[in-house]
């Protein structure tokens, strides 16, 4: 996978993850173009489209679009399920996730994504294992807070 973008129905970018080196300018250009292209599509249309030399796989969940760019030989359907598994992970972590969760806890959305996908490839597909890693980290946070109080 080359990159993943989350954006709202209004075209606001909510999360961006790039797995290939690109300049900021190029990233902005791609984002603008893709948001426009995807938002222009009608609901019943197919979830895949050819774009430049990449394949775009996207799916809408409530007010958010999840959009992945994959390479020619990559599998479209399994990418669709990568998106779904990520949504499930967010949902399980936040408890019926909504756009606001991702806005206000954007760092969590990134951490969860890093546990699930790394370098553009699926790292861990087990929901249990991914969430275990995140919960462990959360636990560490609390421990260290206690620690820092003691120090002061």
């Amino acid at each position, binding site marked *: 996978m080359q990159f993943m973008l989350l954006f709202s129905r209004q075209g606001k970018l909510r999360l961006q993850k790039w797995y290939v080196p690109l300049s900021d300018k190029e990233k902005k250009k791609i984002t603008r173009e893709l948001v426009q292209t995807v938002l222009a599509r009608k609901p*019943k*249309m197919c979830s895949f489209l050819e774009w430049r030399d990449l394949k775009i796989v996207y799916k809408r969940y409530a007010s958010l679009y999840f959009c992945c760019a994959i390479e020619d030989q990559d599998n*479209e359907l399994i990418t669709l399920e*990568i998106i779904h598994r990520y949504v499930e992970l967010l949902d399980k972590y936040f408890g019926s996730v909504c756009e606001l969760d991702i806005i206000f806890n954007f760092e969590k959305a990134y951490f969860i994504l890093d546990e699930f996908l790394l370098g553009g490839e699926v790292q861990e597909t087990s929901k249990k294992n991914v969430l275990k890693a995140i919960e462990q980290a959360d636990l560490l946070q609390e421990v260290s807070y206690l620690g820092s109080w003691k120090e002061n």
Partner: protein
Amino acid sequence: MGKSKEAEIKRINKELANIRSKAPFPSSASGDKALDGYSKKKYVCKLLFIFLLGHDIDFGHMEAVNLLSSNKYTEKQIGYLFISVLVNSNSELIRLINNAIKNDLASRNPTFMCLALHCIANVGSREMGEAFAADIPRILVAGDSMDSVKQSAALCLLRLYKASPDLVPMGEWTARVVHLLNDQHMGVVTAAVSLITCLCKKNPDDFKTCISLAVSRLSRIVSSASTDLQDYTYYFVPAPWLSVKLLRLLQCYPPPEDAAVKGRLVECLETVLNKAQEPPKSKKVQHSNAKNAILFETISLIIHYDSEPNLLVRACNQLGQFLQHRETNLRYLALESMCTLASSEFSHEAVKTHIDTVINALKTERDVSVRQRAADLLYAMCDRSNAKQIVSEMLRYLETADYAIREEIVLKVAILAEKYAVDYSWYVDTILNLIRIAGDYVSEEVWYRVLQIVTNRDDVQGYAAKTVFEALQAPACHENMVKVGGYILGEFGNLIAGDPRSSPPVQFSLLHSKFHLCSVATRALLLSTYIKFINLFPETKATIQGVLRAGSQLRNADVELQQRAVEYLTLSSVASTDVLATVLEEMPPFPERESSILAKLKRKKGPGAASALDDSRRDTSNNDINGGVEPTPSTVSTPSPSADLLGLRAAPPPAAPSVPVGGNLLVDVFSDGPTAQPSLGPTPEEAFLSPGPEDIGPPIPEADELLNKFVCKNSGVLFENQLLQIGVKSEFRQNLGRMYLFYGNKTSVQFQSFSPTLVVQTKRVAAQVDGGAQVQQVLNIECLRDFLTPPLLSVRFRYGGTAQSLTLKLPVTINKFFQPTEMAAQDFFQRWKQLSLPLQEAQKIFKANHPMDAEVTKAKLLGFGSALLDNVDPNPENFVGAGIIQTKALQVGCLLRLEPNAQAQMYRLTLRTSKEPVSRHLCELLAQQF
């Protein structure tokens, strides 16, 4: 929208100022103003948030790097996130970052190690590779690494290898990586397969052992029950991601040599095909997607092997079921996958049985991307047995096809028609139909090719002449038809001349009735046809000589047309019949060569697109197929991109200072034809019912360059991007002009709230522009007095919910109102002397940006609008021109002299006019053109 955007920026600037006042965040050791870790984290987090909203962040990097070495997990984590998102590879901080990472990798704390590995994988720069590429393999295969660390290490290494393969040393660790395929932990296997798939592409032999390991892993997954793999089962499908990756890995190799391994693999593939037929275990789309993802990957592998006829045919049948599935996604993928099956000899016939379904898809699918796949598949499955059906269906589709794919369909039809033509009259009919239905999309390659083939096959020449003659009878036929018709009748018109309905005079008057509507290139071609007619049909000689002799030909402003008229006229008068017959002999057959159409399709679609057909290389020499027809000296120059053409800042318009642009032009805009009454007041100030300047964005950066293209010509494409094309056609007479603007929607989606506005006065055009449609806007222009800056054209519309806006300069420059003036040398010099005040003269010496060709220069000067005066300048290399700029208020006499210096590749341009700013302005405008 604008308000909230403004508010957001205001709020963010306030927050940035606040955070900046705290930076650099002092460490807790340094005393009173110490920020606690929570605050540090909070501020870095806020900066990150602001960056992700799309704003630029120019500080905070150092603070984030400091967080990396915090021993508090929460701070470290935010620090790493900031670095991953915001630090680019050439940052000076990279040494500090690498140090922190090194410490965390050595910490033996798996959570910290994973954070560090994620950071390396996210940044993935060469510097990171240099620092860590040698360590990571060790972490990956170490016996005591935790599973989660192994997973991260594998993918981290993959990312570094992709960025800089030279930095990842192969070694004894590679063998151990392959054995990770046997790992008990499915997550480790999942990560490792990706790494191996990437590594084995460059070193297939080193990783060969992965084949049997992958097969046995796959076999275990495929044959497991739906609950065996617990959390690695996804909607009743066991380990779909891992299965797909394993099947992908196997596609890096040919079929296994070991018979046992191969047998086991074929069994796996059959099991997948069998399971696809079983009733679904769940109604959820996730279940069917995961299952079918494996199925499609399996089919890819079967096609890759291309050695198991039985499996290929089964795959084809399976895909056939999907062609009518209610899920659009599956129909799309089935069409795509079948395309590759069509190219296998084993499954080609099986694919063909689905022709009716595919044709139906082409007609009824509502999504253009699916229709595109259907067209691709029809092309791929075409052979001699079904070519007529497929070509006629594609032609029918072309009538309503999306603009975006028309050219490609045209190319495909042209290729199929040629390749599978049994009788060439069918081929000729097909190509002429293409021109009739989609003339704009028929490229030169296509119509050159039909001429080539007709020239080479004498069995079809009479038919071609007759058919093209009939096609030309249509009252409105496409210019490409005129070109083909002109050429074919010029060569083979004699074959139908016996029929009184297509006698030579009839043929000639039919062609000549189209002449005046055509472009210069086509008219040039037709002039060649006429001289051929004189040779073929002596009885037309007098008529045609009359046409050639007409002032509109002999003194045509276009040098190519002028030259042809002069030469052909002379040729027809002085040459004997024999000489004429020799000169104008029928074209010899073209050497058989590959179709350049095929090359064009390949260029459009990338390699492999036209694989169903023979390979061919691009043949540029095909361009000369029409002998003399080739174009026309370019009257369009490409100006240097950096030119500040109008010197806007230097010379603001003297009149109407409150209006920034176009102050001395009256432009009346109406949408419904020239009958509307301009409702403009007598003075320019009153006419400007313009929106305030704040409503109009600044012109796009290329605006000057685009404007520059139109200084010497009056029509062409003013602007084009992915969504929109704006064409211009204009004509000027004295101080009046009329301009047609054509706004073409290049997408398949309607533009809404479409409003092209001039900063002058507007009448609306239709507020919606349908996908693929074009709206036209007519402007009536009157030049009131001399002006320096062109009006602005602001185009706004909504496309799929997003507002688009665009400001261009309208291609109206003062020289458009030139009236050429002929005068004798004596008069010229007298006037030249009269205009001798220093301010009346403007001079520029500049380097040539284009080849110095006298003919091209002449054409440009004529296009600029002045008359060219011969025998005035004692040096015949120089150009001298004269004209009067007509405005309502006054006339400005202009004299110009252009002195090329071929040796130095320089020009000197001198302008003298009766009005000082005009001299300078014209000089600037014209100097950009050479």
